[in-house]
Every structure is written in C-alpha cells, then in structure tokens.
C-alpha cells in the first residue's frame, strides 16, 4: 500500500482556497499516484473556528464530492482519500473524517467516523459547538480492515485497543494538535509532539497495527498546530515523520503483511481478545448494565 500524507496549513475558514491548495498538492501526488492519501483533521478549514464552524460545515456527500473532484482535477486516477472536516448533518454538527474511494467515474464514501472524544478543556472548546460521535467503526478497504480515530480519540488507550479487536490492521488518525511544552532544555522538540509519538508508537506496538497520523500545521491565532505527521509500523517504529511547522507531503510504501509478522512475534492483541470479556464483564466497572 503506497501511502501519502498531506500536512496541510489551511487559511482559516477559507474552504474554497484550501480546496484549491489541496488540489495543487494532489497534482504533485498524481505524478506518482499513491493508493491512500491522508489529510489531517479540519484539513480544509483550520481547527479553531468557534462559531465559524457553522459557516464552513458541510454534508459528508459534498465533502466527498469536493475531494473526488480535486483528485480527478489534479489528474489522479484511482486512490482512496481520508480527510477530516466539519460535518453538517441536517443541522447537527460533527468533527468528522471520511474514507472515500475515488475513481475516474466518481467517488464513494466507504466510511465516516465522527469524533467521539471532543476535546473540551483548556484551549479546546469542541463540545460547545459540536456533537459527539457514538460509534467506533471498523471498515474493510481493498487493503484490509481499518479504523479512523480523530485526534483525542487516539489518546485513550482503549480506542486503538477496541479498533484492533474489531479487526483493524491500520489506524488512520487525522489530527490537529496545538503544540506546547518548551520548558525542558535539550529535548529537541515540543513536549506535546513527543507525547503524541509515545501514544502512537505504543498503540502500534501493543496491537500490531500500522498507525498513519496526519497532523494539521500552521499557527491559528498564536496556537501552532504541531504537524509532525508520521507513520508507525506494527513494531512501533517510526517509518517517516514530518516537521512540525511547515506544510509538506510524506510518502511511504507499507507492507501490510508486517502486521501478521508483528502479531506473531508479539501476540498481545490475541491475548487481549481472550481476556477482554472478563475485563468488560467485571461488575465493578462503572458501566450501565440495564436501562435505568
């Protein structure tokens, strides 16, 4: 599977301009077409929109159509595209990402993930403006089963675990993470970037999955999106990583059989599958057992 990540630096709220810029990046990719193209969370609008989210949100079908037209317009043949956007579903708004199959004849939405963990603390205010997704789905692609997690979704260890248990061999993670943490001399990078890498590597290593992380970049009102898009192999090793503060393209050819090999070497996922029922059936867990 030939993967390309486009680390976008969108102009705030200017969807048309950002779509055009993405078309240019697509043209660069189409010369040597990848199988899968991944864009960040809020890739064509910017992340911190506040009430502006209602101006730029659009139905999933329109976003898929725009991605398809941009790819075909750039001379692209067949490719699958994952990208994050703000979704307007008949007046209910979500932070969503689509997996779209694009071909010469049109495009088809294979999967839509709505962000479940809406970051709402400190600088984050998503749940003030958005509704949260209710389902972590996995889906079959021509490359195998995948799951999409959006940003904070991936920070909860149970999410990659459940996605892998449900069959995902690849986790695609569009993200928008404002970088922070400069107070430790000699680290060589922002603390938040290092934390993200730890999270992604651990998810890949524990479950034997490829992790494809596409980070938004660019400063939004002083808050610098930390880019650092990367791909982690199923052994937990970084395959390729982008810089923090510039828009760019990352490319890598991934051998999905490495998932099998990694799981054979370190069968933690199989162990989890065996033990998980006991864990979830524990009476002491604060889970609803019946309708109140």
């Amino acid at each position, binding site marked *: 599977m030939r993967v390309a990540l486009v680390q976008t630096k969108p*102009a705030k709220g200017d969807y048309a301009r950002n779509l055009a810029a993405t078309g240019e990046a697509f043209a660069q990719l189409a010369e040597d077409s990848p199988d899968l193209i991944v864009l960040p969370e809020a890739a064509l609008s910017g992340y911190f929109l506040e009430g502006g989210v209602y101006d730029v949100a659009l139905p999933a079908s329109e976003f898929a159509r725009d991605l398809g037209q941009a790819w075909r317009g750039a001379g692209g043949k067949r490719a699958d595209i994952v990208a994050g956007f703000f979704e307007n579903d008949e007046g209910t708004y979500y932070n969503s990402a689509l997996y779209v199959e694009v071909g010469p004849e049109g495009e088809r939405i294979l999967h839509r993930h709505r962000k479940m963990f809406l970051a709402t603390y400190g600088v984050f205010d998503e749940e003030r403006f958005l509704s949260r997704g209710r389902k972590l789905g996995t889906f079959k692609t021509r490359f195998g089963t995948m799951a999409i997690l959006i940003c904070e979704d991936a920070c909860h260890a149970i999410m990659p675990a459940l996605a892998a248990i449900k069959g995902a061999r690849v986790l695609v993670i569009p993200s928008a993470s404002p970088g922070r943490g400069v107070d430790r001399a000699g680290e060589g990078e922002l603390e938040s970037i290092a934390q993200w890498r730890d999270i992604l590597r651990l998810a890949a290593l524990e479950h034997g999955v490829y992790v494809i992380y596409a980070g938004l970049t660019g*400063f939004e009102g002083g808050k610098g999106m930390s880019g650092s898009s990367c791909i982690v192999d199923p052994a937990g090793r970084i395959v390729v990583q982008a810089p923090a*503060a510039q828009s760019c393209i990352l490319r890598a050819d991934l051998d999905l059989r490495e998932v099998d090999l990694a799981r054979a070497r370190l069968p933690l996922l199989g162990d989890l599958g065996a033990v998980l029922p006991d864990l979830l059936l524990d009476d002491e867990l604060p889970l609803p057992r019946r309708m109140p």
Partner: protein
Amino acid sequence: MTLPVFERTFGAPSPPGIDAPVAAEWLVAFLRDELIVRRGIDRAVVGLSGGVDSAVTAFLCARALGPERVYALRLPYRTSHPSSLEDAQLVVEALGIHCATIDISPAVDGYLQFEPDADARRRGNVMARTRMVVLFDQSAKRDALPVGTGNKTERLLGYFTWHADDSPPVNPIGDLFKSQVWELARYLGVPQRLIEKAPTADLQADQTDEADLGITYARADAILAQLLLGFSDNQLAQRGFDPAEVALVRRRVDSTHWKRHLPTTAMVSGTAINEFYLRPVDY
C-alpha cells in the same frame, strides 16, 4: 543486605527552563505565519527599550523576516536613562536592522504641562501610551506590524500599562517567563550587557522591576510556574517556597486578571460579541 534506595526529591524551587533552540524555531514560525501568511505583512516594527524582552523580540523578528524588514524604534523620554538608548543601539548593530529614534518628550510634556500634579504612576502610563501611539503610527507609515514585547511574568503580575505595552497585535514572547526570556536571549546572541543588566521600566529614575515588584524574577517565575498549574499555598510551602513570596505573587495575579482581557462590555443581546457571537481572531 541493605538495599539501595531511590527516592523522589523536589530540590530547591527553581524557575522554569527552556529548550531555547526549539522555542526559537517555533516562535520564528509563529511570526512568519502570523505576519506573512495570515496578514500578508512582511515588515515588523519593534520598540527597543534597551531591555532584554524587546531585544529578544527584535532578534526573533530578524530571524523570521530578515533584518532588512525589521524597524527598531528607540523612543526616549527626557528622563530616560542614557544607557537605555545605548543598549538598544547594541541590538540594532548586532542585527543590522533599521532604527529610528523619536523623542517622545514633546508629546508627553505637551499633555502633562496641564497636569503638573500627576504622580509617577500617571506620568509613566502617559509615556507608555505615547510610545504605543508612535509605535502604531510608525508601523502604518512602513506598512509594517507592531510586534509586542511583553513577557509572561509581567503579564501575570500586571506589571505593564494596559492598552500600551500589551497593545501590539502579535507577541512572540508573551507565553515565556522572564527567566526563559533570559535563556532565550543567551541562545539568540543578544548582547551580554542587556542580559546582565537589572530589568527596568525606566519610567522613573533608578527604577528597577525587582524593587518595584518586591521579589526577584527568578523567584517569582518559580512560584508562578507552580501557581498556574493549580498548586495551593500549602503545597507550595511543602515544596520549599517562601509563603510570604507566594502570597505576594498570588495577590498580584489575582488582582490583575482584568488587565489580561479586553474591556468589560455590558451584554444586552443574544448576539453579544465574544459572548454569543464567537469568531476566532484569525477568522
């Protein structure tokens, strides 16, 4: 057999450190994105006081935009210390940036002649706000953007003139404590004299920040860093901080929240700006 013991220690309270190369690169990216990408402005105006904050800001702007696009302003008042001008000049020469010197005495005195009883605080505020007027006009003259120089410590302690020092639309160092600014200055190559001199607002003769504040920056920064993380006075005392200094710092922070906000506006509608009508600054 006695087992070796490995135990957590807090150590003496110390100000926050900084990964200076990472911070510098990040702040340069910030300046480029906020000025060039977002606003389409590739020139910056920085008021150089002769102190370390404005020097660091000028160094960052020169890195981000190129020295030929940075305009330093030296804005002395007749009572300003002569060394302030000299130290600002060191920055200009080190960077090869443009520089203009505009004496604000006639403008300040033009008003204050009608207010002969104005005390030092009022006079200082008039000077700071006059500098703000000049900074913005000189920026307009050059199609440039004024870049702010206030650090996190003075912002938290309220040690600045509202709608003056804090007025430029972008500020690269406002989330850095003074101690971090000093370290960043060393990394950037700010002339040593500016790093070693006692910080001063230079609004009154022989004024120093630390005498005004009643605490050193190093100690204030160490307290502030913990205080912002939510630690209580008791927890700070347990960690070796001086309770009187903690109280001093907390009092200053708690009494100056208003200085870190826009003016309070009476809300009478469901579309009140920044209350219901919510759009980010870069929208």
